[in-house]
């Protein structure tokens, strides 16, 4: 499967995606504006809390082409962060008390300067999270020692697994991904990840493999632990349930399967003010592969820069100005405020 970008698909254009999410009034049933919901909740303008996490997107290059990917990542994407931009990130980080750097992509490990970056973050005494897609570990010999590398730097590994069986997993992530994920999880368990008492944290991410909301996070976690333990001898720490947002490939899936209107309706009906209060854009800043700054990874993919003209690139990082900003919101935000809420850390309400 090719990325939307490689297909020259109309949805690879962020401006077009925004017109789909914000149809003209005359075009028929539009959903209430997300901003108006925030206003009702007393959260407009949406303001940050102190910056706690720097989330860095290391590029759109990936060894997988997952159906729900909001990044439109894949092997045919060549955009990756340069070492120079990584240095700019490190320089900005050094000026702050931010304790956590969250590395995402694409597959962050495919960036040639990935290990160097992790070493530098450790050298600054900060914690690294790596959003590892698991199959990268077994994709090529040169990645086989990633578990040991992660362990050496106390990296918190966060990996997607949409189900405890192959059918739903492979439907979302590609044929054979479930089996390769189990092999990778065994390799991580072998160096202590996910094993109680090891101090090496391995969390799994549950993204629904279709046009439905995630179920109860605790209940899914119990089920996953039981089934993965019993059937595959795999252990992990926590399960994070994350909602799919109507951006890029998931938006394409919703439109193609005629589920867009009913899915958006589900998100809007499930709007939860408590989840809105705890949205991750309030405490996380997103850095694009080219160094530009965004309120979150979804805004990044929709090319909605932070509303701080003087600090829109990491080289111009200004913590004070950023912590005083109004967060940019749009209709996709309903995904993070539905039901129990959603964030890169799982349920929020």
């Amino acid at each position, binding site marked *: 499967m090719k990325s939307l970008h490689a297909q020259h698909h109309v949805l690879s254009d962020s401006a077009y995606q925004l017109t789909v999410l914000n149809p003209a009034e005359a075009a028929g049933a539009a959903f209430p504006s997300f901003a108006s919901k925030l206003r009702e909740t007393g959260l407009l303008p949406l303001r940050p809390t102190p910056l706690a996490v720097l989330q860095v997107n290391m590029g759109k290059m990936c060894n997988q082409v997952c159906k729900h990917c909001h990044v439109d990542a894949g092997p045919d994407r060549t955009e990756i962060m340069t070492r120079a931009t990584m240095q700019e990130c490190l320089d900005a980080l050094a000026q702050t008390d931010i304790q956590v750097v969250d590395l995402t992509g694409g597959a962050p490990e495919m960036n040639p300067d990935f290990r160097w970056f992790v070493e530098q973050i450790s050298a600054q005494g900060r914690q690294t999270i790596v959003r590892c897609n698991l199959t990268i570990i077994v994709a090529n010999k040169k990645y086989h020692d990633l578990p040991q590398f992660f362990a050496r730097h106390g990296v918190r590994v966060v990996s997607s697994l949409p*189900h405890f*069986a192959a*059918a*739903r997993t492979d439907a979302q992530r590609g044929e054979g991904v479930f089996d390769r994920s189990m092999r990778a999880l065994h390799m991580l368990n072998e160096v202590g990840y996910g094993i109680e008492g090891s101090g090496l944290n391995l969390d799994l991410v*549950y993204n*629904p493999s*279709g046009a*439905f*909301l*995630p*179920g*109860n996070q605790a*209940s*899914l976690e119990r*089920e996953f632990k039981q089934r993965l333990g019993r059937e595959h001898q795999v252990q992990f720490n926590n399960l994070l349930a994350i909602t799919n947002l109507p951006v890029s490939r998931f938006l394409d899936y919703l439109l193609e399967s005629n589920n867009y209107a009913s899915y958006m309706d589900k998100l809007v009906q499930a709007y939860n003010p408590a989840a809105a209060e705890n949205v991750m854009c309030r405490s996380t800043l997103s850095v694009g592969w080219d160094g530009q700054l965004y309120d979150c990874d979804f805004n990044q993919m929709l090319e909605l820069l932070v509303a701080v003209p003087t600090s829109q690139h990491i080289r111009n990082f200004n913590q004070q100005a950023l912590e005083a900003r109004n967060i940019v919101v749009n209709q996709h935000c309903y995904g993070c405020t539905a039901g129990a809420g959603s964030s890169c850390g799982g349920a929020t309400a």
Partner: protein
Amino acid sequence: MSDASYYNPADLAKFGKISEWQPEMGRKFFDYYGEVFKEGALSEREKSLIALAVAHVVQCPYCIDAYTSDALQKGADEAQMMEAVHVGAAIKGGATLVHATMMMNKAKELSM
């Protein structure tokens, strides 16, 4: 003649409106329904799969629609959902066949 059907999927969303013509009974039913499906001695997920199986046995298209979505949302996959329906089929089929013991008794009464 139009191609209308007796069943319209959009009617599922109107279930609550039945209370308009009998408010008190409607309220009691929906309160009970909500209570039944809460997490209890059985998990919400177990109840969802039971509901899915029963929906097929009583052949209610609205319930099949609602509980297919619900089961997927609660993390069930195709294999689990179909297995649940087979449980329903086994009981329905079994209920038919076990009555044959009555037939056998009666046949023996009347036969040489």
